[in-house]
């Protein structure tokens, strides 16, 4: 039985009872409990099922290393799968369910895998399910997938919110045990800005549980005093419930603060992800106890010895009435003594070491505990709960000497420093023979921005094993970090701890040493993923010799605990199987996060409306209020069309085209890029940027221009206006504005830095509105204030002045083929100007139109669109734009590229118009298909559709496309293939479908 004790429980508040449910059962715990402690207090040792064999599993540990006790926490929009019960703080109303079983935790049909375990060794699926071929997809894989996964998949969107925080410190100390506290103190006293973080809700780590004595007082008191001292320091910040999740390059560290996990439903952000930039990082992350590998070490009731102690001391919970302790080191004796003190029975301490005479052993003997040395456990008895252990000689093959009844086993295989954070960014390890663990090699620390070491370890994380060593090491680490961050440490001595003499541990990787196969296939290394000693040995035998191969072949260490308990044991077994030394075999790579962190925290505030910036023009609100159907264009959102009640989007588009062609339309063109280029060398500069000549443009005039990249491909186009002698205004595509502005800056700063040119991106300074259609001039005349007649403002001219009282710059340019004005007014007045236009336009039937109508009208005129006719592989020559490529210029960006053999070749796909024979609309993006096939058996393709629309103006489909030698093939009928492999015939025609002579725009 596991149960609540009447005494002990330093972390719980017995005055405050909390109710919770587990698998629907209503249970009670105390404030301060973890869910695991509360479950144990309610005798709920069985908490889940393992991944592969569905073995019954109990609570094994008391912290973040726990592999078994994973639950579905909460429900609905607050369901969180795979939550570790050992790190979940109990709160009132908590609901949890166990995972990975059907129909119930107690009776799980998946357990059949357990009886088949012999047939399911590591990597069995690589060797089977191969034949028949279709069966993998239809039978085997669905079966394997059904059994995949642990926790339930949430179905709903998350009800909580998350945020980020940027913190800059001199010294970040990770881990708030006595080592972390002392390191923070030493660094803080030196004057460094220190942030000390601890994943648990309380401070002090192991020392108070272990009964350490520091500066003559119990560790608990020393912790309290030290906390007080730290809190008094202005330059030190303490933060608990905050895990050091990862250490990255240049002193970047992630802190995962669980702000409101323990108070769900509060209005606080659930998690806060701290992005910490530290000059120096101290990892004082302690050490993790290792399990021992004996048969049945996974049966509920077998626990880590320190965990057993934690439950008794911290929560007043006893995991069992009769606990057998099995160990290879002195520390587990503390557990035995602690149980004894709590009035519980410890029938035996099983110690693999031949002779133990340390003070702790003496104390145990004095307490009346039977100590069996040189022995091990042959196997644990029981299925869903330990009922006893069989004792054997450690040196032998497992013949049972004696059976001992018990309901719990506390095991200790020694301690491994928590080196994860040290290793994330490249810190290297050394093998410590005496303690049989890897510890950080201070000579090969992670290096930072200047190549300097930026991580130091402190305490047990360094491999220090007694409280005295821990404190001395931590004090030195804190001082070293402060010094490296540019501070002078104070010369205070490190605190002293009472001596803790102990006897050396004895590494034991298998119990007993000569265990048979049957025993080895019952010795769990990775509890969650069901990897056993026999599996690692099999991997080695089959040549998966690299520790990385073993990991991937057996899945050792790949579970949610990332092998915190299993990795060292596993690689020791591997080394043994290979006959190599452990350090030679090495570890797998430690990767962030230290323990899993929520996706919500990573995404932070970026969800819903602020998932991404949404760029709005000054007229955005008007469009919204008038039913715009939106289209994302970069981060902008532009009206695609404005459907009226009862109208489809397509109908709206057609109406907008016709209305603009017949009367007058209004377009919000504010997103167009507007870049001013000024200086004595501006003309020369633009001549390099554009394929055509811009230096010769007259003041007051506009010219359409093309820009290519150095690879020769067309990258942007737009109308350039010359403002004055040394100033040009370049319009770019909406998507191109920022890119082209940066492109200009790049060339000016990095290539032609001696040219006198300044550029500025004025895109957002202006609202730009196109007034388009036969009545456009009338509308502007109504507005009044400026002469917009053909004579004063001819096609491709611009002028500045007042229009309807607004400061306006009016360009007579046309992307539709109609009489058209584009008018720029200051953005702050954009909405007012738009509304003024709507008002005077009413008499002319003016209606707004969206981007789709714009696209159709430009296609009717045969104008190219960047992104449609171009795709990054098209050069201007392909588009028949030779007229826009200056022959006179020696150079422009892209010119040399266009002289390469493949581009200089006249034999390319070139722009033409396309008309289906039946007037239908060619499908988007389809290809012209020839008769033959190529060497790879693909049909010959010799052209493709780049833009295709139904033209409301012409009442039939029109298209543009790139066709092999297209312009030489006018009139030819070619076939286009559709995705369903049928064909549509189309005739090659001139790409200008409407008003070829340009009479409509030139009025």
């Amino acid at each position, binding site marked *: 039985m596991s149960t609540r004790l009447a005494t002990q429980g330093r972390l719980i508040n017995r005055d405050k009872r909390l109710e919770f449910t587990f698998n629907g059962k209503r249970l009670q715990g105390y404030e301060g409990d973890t869910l695991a402690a509360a479950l144990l207090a309610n005798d709920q040792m069985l908490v889940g099922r393992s991944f592969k064999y569905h073995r019954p599993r109990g609570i094994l540990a008391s912290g973040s290393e726990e592999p078994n006790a994973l639950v579905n926490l909460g429900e609905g929009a607050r369901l969180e799968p795979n939550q570790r019960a050992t790190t979940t703080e109990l709160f009132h109303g908590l609901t949890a369910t166990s995972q990975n079983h059907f129909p119930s935790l107690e009776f799980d049909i998946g357990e059949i895998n357990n009886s088949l375990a012999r047939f399911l060794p590591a990597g069995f699926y690589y060797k089977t399910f191969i034949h028949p071929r279709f069966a993998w997809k239809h039978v085997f894989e669905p079966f394997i997938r059904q059994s995949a996964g642990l926790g339930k998949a949430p179905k709903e969107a998350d009800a909580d919110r998350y945020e980020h925080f940027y913190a800059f410190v001199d010294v970040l100390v990770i881990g708030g045990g006595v080592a972390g506290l002392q390191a923070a103190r030493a660094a803080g006293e030196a004057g460094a800005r220190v942030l000390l973080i601890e994943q648990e809700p309380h401070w002090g780590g192991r020392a108070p549980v272990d009964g350490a004595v520091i500066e003559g007082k119990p560790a608990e008191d020393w912790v309290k005093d030290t906390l007080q001292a730290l809190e008094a320091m202005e330059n030190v910040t303490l933060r608990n419930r905050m895990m050091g999740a990862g250490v*990255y*390059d*240049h*002193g970047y560290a992630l802190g995962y603060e669980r702000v409101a996990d323990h108070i769900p439903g509060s209005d606080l952000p659930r998690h806060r992800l701290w992005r910490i930039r530290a000059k120096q990082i101290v990892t004082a992350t302690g050490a993790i106890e290792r399990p021992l590998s004996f048969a049945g070490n996974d049966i509920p009731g077998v626990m880590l010895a320190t965990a057993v102690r934690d439950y008794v001391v911290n929560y007043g919970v006893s995991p069992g009435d009769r606990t057998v302790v099995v160990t290879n080191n002195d520390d587990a004796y503390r557990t035995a003594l602690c149980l004894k003190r709590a009035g519980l029975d410890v029938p035996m301490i099983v110690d693999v070491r031949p002779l133990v005479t340390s003070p702790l052993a003496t104390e145990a003997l004095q307490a009346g505990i039977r100590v069996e040395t040189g022995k091990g456990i042959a196997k644990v008895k029981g299925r869903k709960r330990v009922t006893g252990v069989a004792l054997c000689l450690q040196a032998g093959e497992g013949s049972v000497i004696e059976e001992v009844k018990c309901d719990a086993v506390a095991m200790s295989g020694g301690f491994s420093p928590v080196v994860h954070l040290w290793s994330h960014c490249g810190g290297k390890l050394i093998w410590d023979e005496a303690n049989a663990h890897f510890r950080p090699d201070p000579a090969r620390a992670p*290096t930072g*921005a200047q*190549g300097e070491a930026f991580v130091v370890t402190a305490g047990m994380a360094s491999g220090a094993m007694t409280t005295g060593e821990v404190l001395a090491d931590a004090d030195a680490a804190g001082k070293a970090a402060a010094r490296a961050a540019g501070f002078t440490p104070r010369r205070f001595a490190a605190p002293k701890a009472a001596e803790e003499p102990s006897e050396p541990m004895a590494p034991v990787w298998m119990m007993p040493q000569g265990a048979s196969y049957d025993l080895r296939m019952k010795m769990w290394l990775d509890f969650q993923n069901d990897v056993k000693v026999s599996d690692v040995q099999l991997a080695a035998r089959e040549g998966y010799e690299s520790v990385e191969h073993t990991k991937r072949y057996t899945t050792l260490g790949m579970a949610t605990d990332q092998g915190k308990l299993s990795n060292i044991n596993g690689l020791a077994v591997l080394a043994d199987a290979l006959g190599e030394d452990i350090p030679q075999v090495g570890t797998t790579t430690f990767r962030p996060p230290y323990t899993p962190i929520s996706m919500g925290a990573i995404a932070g505030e970026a969800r819903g409306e602020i998932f991404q910036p949404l760029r709005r023009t000054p007229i955005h609100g008007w469009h919204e209020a008038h039913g715009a159907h939106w289209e994302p264009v970069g981060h902008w959102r532009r009206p695609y069309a404005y459907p009226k009640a009862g109208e489809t989007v397509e109908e709206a588009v057609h109406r907008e085209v016709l209305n603009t062609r017949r009367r007058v339309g209004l377009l919000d063109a504010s997103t167009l890029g507007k870049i001013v280029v000024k200086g004595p060398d501006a003309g020369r500069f633009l001549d390099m940027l554009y394929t055509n000549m811009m230096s010769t443009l007259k003041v007051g005039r506009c010219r359409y221009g093309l820009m290519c990249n150095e690879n020769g491909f067309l990258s942007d186009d737009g109308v350039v206006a010359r403002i004055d002698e040394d100033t040009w205004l370049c319009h770019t595509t909406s998507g191109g504005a920022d890119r082209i502005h940066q492109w200009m800056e790049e060339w000016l700063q990095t290539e032609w830095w001696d040219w006198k040119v300044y550029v500025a991106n004025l895109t957002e300074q202006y609202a730009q509105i196109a007034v388009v259609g036969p009545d456009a001039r009338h509308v502007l005349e109504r507005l009044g204030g400026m002469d917009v007649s053909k004579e004063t403002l001819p096609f491709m001219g611009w002028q500045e002045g007042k229009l309807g009282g607004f400061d306006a710059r009016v360009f007579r340019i046309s992307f539709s083929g109609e009489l058209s004005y584009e008018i720029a007014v200051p953005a702050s007045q954009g909405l007012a100007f738009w509304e003024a236009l709507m008002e005077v336009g009413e008499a002319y039937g003016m209606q707004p139109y969206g981007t789709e109508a714009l696209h159709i009208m430009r296609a009717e005129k045969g104008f190219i669109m960047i992104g449609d006719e171009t795709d990054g592989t098209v050069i201007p020559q392909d588009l028949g734009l030779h007229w826009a490529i200056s022959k006179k210029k020696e150079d422009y960006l892209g*010119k*040399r590229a266009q002289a*390469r053999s493949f581009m200089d070749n006249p034999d390319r796909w070139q722009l033409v118009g396309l008309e289906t024979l039946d007037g239908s609309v060619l499908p988007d993006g389809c290809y012209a298909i020839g008769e033959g096939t190529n060497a790879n058996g693909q049909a010959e393709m010799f052209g493709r559709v780049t833009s295709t629309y139904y033209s409301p103006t012409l009442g039939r489909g029109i298209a543009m496309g790139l066709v092999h030698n297209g312009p030489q093939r006018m009139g030819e009928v070619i076939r286009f293939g559709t995705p369903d492999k049928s064909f549509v015939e189309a005739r090659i025609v001139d790409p200008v479908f409407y008003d070829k002579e340009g009479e409509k725009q030139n009025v």
Partner: protein
Amino acid sequence: MLILTCPYCGVTGEETEFAAGGEAHLKRFGPGSSDAEFESYLFARKNEKGVTFERWRHANGCGKWFHAARCTVTLEVFGTYKAQVTEPPKEILAAIRKRRPGWEPAA
């Protein structure tokens, strides 16, 4: 997550304030250059495993392009310098040699 110092505005900021811009000190080849010269200008990258000279822009800051000498294996930065030069300045070379004795720039 690198930190870099912009030599123009002096800001020392994290990588997200900057934009990486590829190999530094490329010589532009235009009309009249050979196919090989032009191809190498556009494509043949040193892609050094070790000390590299590269371009960055202070995108979320002063907007200026600058150069950095960085190691692609350790990610340490030896220094940053202005973009208006055709080769790394002496101080930068010295800073590199200080930490990489005997290092010579690749041809």
